[in-house]
């Protein structure tokens, strides 16, 4: 579904990604792991169209998609969450989720202004869909709370809800469980797996917690200093020497 081919991203003289290739197949859950600064978020940003790689290609469904702008990438059916929760703090949870629905909203400005007929109906349809997501992620109680006031764990869940609202085919999650306790992580894992099995959404996630990665991912890719150093099934990667050296840790005497 998503092919990243030899992509390199540079900020001035700093090469953040160095000829990284990755293949994400439909319906699978791929985990991207690596030490801090390895370029994982940069990779997601490149896929989102926020950074344009100076070499390499990105293909979605076989079509060349390397130099699209972020809204165009979103229109393809790629949604994501962010490392530092990027909720719209001034809006309620419900509004945040409805904003996620924006791509699906067609509107005529005039009808919007009058809150008439089709505009009203459409708004209510989208509200119904948003409520389904709210039910799915069990956040009914906080739907009218301003997002800025929520505890961190709930904010992450709302961000997931917002991403789901767009009915994406590919979901990019950037450290969805950072800063959560064990229970919250279990809930989040359950939600991610449910999204994958019920909606068939393909998922690529960045994650630091190894147990989570081992549990839920079909395949794992490991980045270090901007390069991909390993890829394969979780147990393969876990025993890969290069990965252990770089990331999982070895005591050097």
């Amino acid at each position, binding site marked *: 579904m998503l092919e990243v081919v030899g992509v390199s991203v540079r900020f001035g003289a700093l090469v953040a990604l160095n000829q990284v290739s990755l293949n994400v197949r439909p319906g699978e859950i791929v985990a991207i792991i690596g030490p801090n600064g390895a370029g994982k*978020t940069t990779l997601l940003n490149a896929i989102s169209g*926020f950074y344009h790689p100076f070499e390499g290609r990105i293909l979605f469904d076989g079509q060349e998609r390397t130099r699209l702008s972020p809204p165009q990438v979103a229109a393809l059916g790629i949604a994501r969450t*962010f490392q530092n929760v*990027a909720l719209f703090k001034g809006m309620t949870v419900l509004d945040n989720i409805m904003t996620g629905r924006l791509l699906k909203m067609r509107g005529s400005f005039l009808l919007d202004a009058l809150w008439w007929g089709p505009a009203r109906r459409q708004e209510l349809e989208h509200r119904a869909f948003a409520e389904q997501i709210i039910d799915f992620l069990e956040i009914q109680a906080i739907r009218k709370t301003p997002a800025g006031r929520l505890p961190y764990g709930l904010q992450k869940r709302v961000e997931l809800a917002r991403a789901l609202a767009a009915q994406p085919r590919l979901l990019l999650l950037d450290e969805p469980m950072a800063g959560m306790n064990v229970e919250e992580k279990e809930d989040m894992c359950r939600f991610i797996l449910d999204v994958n099995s019920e909606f068939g959404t393909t998922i690529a996630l960045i994650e630091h917690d190894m147990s989570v990665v081992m549990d839920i991912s079909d395949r794992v890719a490991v980045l270090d200093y901007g390069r991909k150093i390993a890829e394969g099934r979780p147990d393969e990667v876990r025993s890969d020497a290069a990965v252990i050296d770089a990331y999982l840790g070895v005591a050097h005497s």
Partner: protein
Amino acid sequence: MIAETLYAVLVGPFRDIVTGPLFFLEVLIGGIAAGLLYSLVALGFVLIYKASGVFNFAQGVMVLFAALTLVGLIERGVPVAVALLLTIAVMIVLAFAVERVVLRPLVNQAPIILFMATIGLNFFLEGLGEMVWGANVKKLDVGIPDESLKVAGVLVNKLEMTAAGTAAVLVAVLAVFFQRTRIGRALRAVADDHEAALSIGIPLKTIWVVVWSVAGIVAIAAGIMWGAKSGVQFSLSLIALKALPVLILGGFESVPGAIVGGLIIGVGEKIGEVYWGPLVGGAIENWFAYVLALAFLLVRPQGLFGEKIIERV
């Protein structure tokens, strides 16, 4: 018709410049002098922005306030040196007050909120200044005559030159202060990230007071220069608005940028007004600086000296 207009706009003024080089030099010098004064005011902004990340819209009114206090004291018979010291004291007290009342409560808010707070501060100080010192124009006498003399055939104004010279010295001193001293480094750390600076033990409150005081002193200098030239009056606070294009050109955080920006705006304005102004009926100075800044922004959104902001998600 079109050919005439094109000629008048694109060729005529340049021809005037070339055929009257001495006059052009005078205009240029006038522009530089005005530009240096803009730089001084902009410098106050840059200092505060560098240290507290706040865009102090009230800088212009601080200039006015400083000048008003100084003149008011002198008028009441206080000797100039004492008046100067008292004014400095007043500005330091003002710095404390601003830190306590405005900055501390708003320490974590978005920059736009801080900016609007300084707009509120601006108006408050304007009203206060007028109430305390009265609204009429005051003459500020610093002992330098406002006369011109011919230097190598070019007409030069003594007062303007002194002002320019002082401004240049001040700017140099401040540049060194920021780059070389320990306090300078601390200030730069604070500007970058308040919380991080706090966490490594930099006394935020002290730094802010220091910076706002220095800005106050810069304001005094600017106030004296402007006041000596055109009298202390309320249009002085409009200069704050004029400093904004300077900051855009030079970047909000760069001391050399404030200088260069000020010069470009000052010279550009004067030349534009003198050579192109008559074509459209004059008073171009009202908007020229802003449109110039706008044009610059379109090409380089971070200004000449600003750093390209790499946004992270």
